[in-house]
């Protein structure tokens, strides 16, 4: 299994309880460097919770997370980000009061060091960082094919575009690993296709690793090297797409077998 050869992320016995509910129950897996790892599972299985525990949004009840050789268990979100991990959110998380370019610029935060006062007095370092970040943002907007939207406010954009902007902000972080929570929900098929291409591209150029939650099975089968399946907070399968797809437990819990599954699977390559 490729993932374990060269893991960038190692999740070990992760557990998360909310009152009486165990949202994550002793989940362990690894994600390989430069690979796309998918997390799938029925609604409420704990996928978002898993993301939240890894990125420090929630403090796990038990278990460890190590990233790029560093133990990041219990890190606050910003420290996780600074360690080189970036994420998007299930229900979109943009800064509605900032235009698209500024949204992207926030992504460059971790590469700078200048403070409030330095900015206030136009200190040289602040200006330098600003210029560098702006150049980078322009590049990324170009890359996403939306340079003309730099001045637009995110609220004016359609949902799919907003998702792209969020992705752009994540790219600004130059992270080693990117966590995407349902990046393609609400997108049309051609847009999904473009998004898939984007993910591929980023991964190949920069060797960025991805951890992706997505319900669109064709897409998942298409892009992932490795799939982790959760159900009721427990890991029920873990392996390459072809194998997971055949796994009876997965079919029973998630994919379904009869017409329902067919409808969804009709587009699979």
């Amino acid at each position: 299994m490729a993932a374990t050869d060269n893991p960038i992320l190692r999740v070990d016995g992760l557990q998360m309880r909310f009152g009486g509910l165990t949202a994550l129950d002793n989940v362990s897996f690894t994600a390989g460097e430069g690979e796309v790892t998918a997390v799938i599972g029925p609604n409420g299985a704990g996928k978002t919770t898993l993301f939240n525990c890894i990125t420090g949004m929630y403090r796990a009840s038990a278990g460890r997370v190590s990233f790029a050789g560093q133990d990041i268990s219990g890190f606050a979100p910003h420290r996780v980000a600074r360690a080189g991990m970036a994420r998007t959110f299930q229900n979109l998380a943009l800064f509605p009061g900032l235009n698209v370019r500024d949204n992207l610029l926030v992504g460059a935060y971790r590469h700078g060091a200048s403070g409030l006062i330095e900015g206030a007095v136009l200190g040289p370092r602040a200006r330098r960082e600003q210029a560098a970040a702006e150049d980078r943002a322009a590049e990324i907007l170009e890359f996403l094919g939306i340079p003309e939207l730099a001045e637009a406010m995110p609220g004016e954009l359609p949902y799919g575009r907003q998702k792209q902007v969020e992705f752009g902000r994540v790219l600004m972080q130059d992270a080693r690993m990117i966590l995407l929570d349902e990046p393609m929900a609400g997108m049309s098929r051609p847009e999904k296709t473009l998004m898939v291409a984007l993910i591929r591209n980023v991964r190949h150029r920069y060797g960025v690793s991805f951890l992706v939650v997505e319900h669109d099975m064709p897409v998942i089968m298409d892009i992932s090297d490795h799939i982790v399946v959760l159900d009721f907070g427990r890991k029920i399968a873990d392996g390459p797409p072809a194998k997971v797809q055949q796994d009876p437990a997965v079919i029973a819990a998630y994919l379904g077998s009869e017409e329902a599954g067919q409808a969804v699977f009709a587009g699979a390559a």
Partner: protein
Amino acid sequence: MALNGTPAADTPLLEVRTLSVAYGRKAVALNAVNLTVPKAGVVALLGANGAGKTTLIRTVSGLIRLHNGAITGGEVLLEGKSIAGLSADRIVRLGMGQVPEGRLVFKNLTVEENLQVGGAILPRATLAERLDAVYDLFPRLAERKDQAAGLMSGGEQQMLALGRALAASPRVLLIDELSLGLAPLIVGAIYQQLKKIREHFGTALLIVEQNARLALGICDYAYVLERGEIVLAGPAELVAASERMHESYLGARAERQAAAG
């Protein structure tokens, strides 16, 4: 472009006539849209992001003003009577249910309370019966009766939103992006439930869906919206078979490309 065939001609349940809608002063979101939902019919509204699907739903349900939009032309008829000027809650009480985009549940209320609010327009006696029917459709909701809705997962909230709309026993149900964020199994199951809803309750459905294939699988009739205009309309099979549909929405070609690249 209209493909052959129109829905049943006798007074349709819901009819949208040359409807135009704009946000703010200039942002035209819908342009002279015509659409019909027959009694107990299932109609799908397809289209890319930003095509105006949500706008259409909001206009029909009267919520558009809450989102700073305004009707600039045309009318909306429910059983032949214009409802364009009515307040959204009036429209709901006239029998129009809605499952909005992005799961608007009452986060601080329990599942049960959410459903009770949904059915608040019903008399007390029928309400209990109706709630049982909803729980039958979604056993997961029955399990979580007393949980606060805000703590449920995305998919569970989606079910709740659907359940809440059904609790009011609407004659026509507007559903915006039902499959968004739902696991395939659940999507499949819910679509099965939609069929049941129509059969059991005779509820007409207007379904907005990104997943064209899924929607075409259950609807009688489909409309395709592009940049605020209907560009394709016709019976489901015909729409599904059309060249344009294949190119843009069912994505056969694009997918093959992606797979190759």
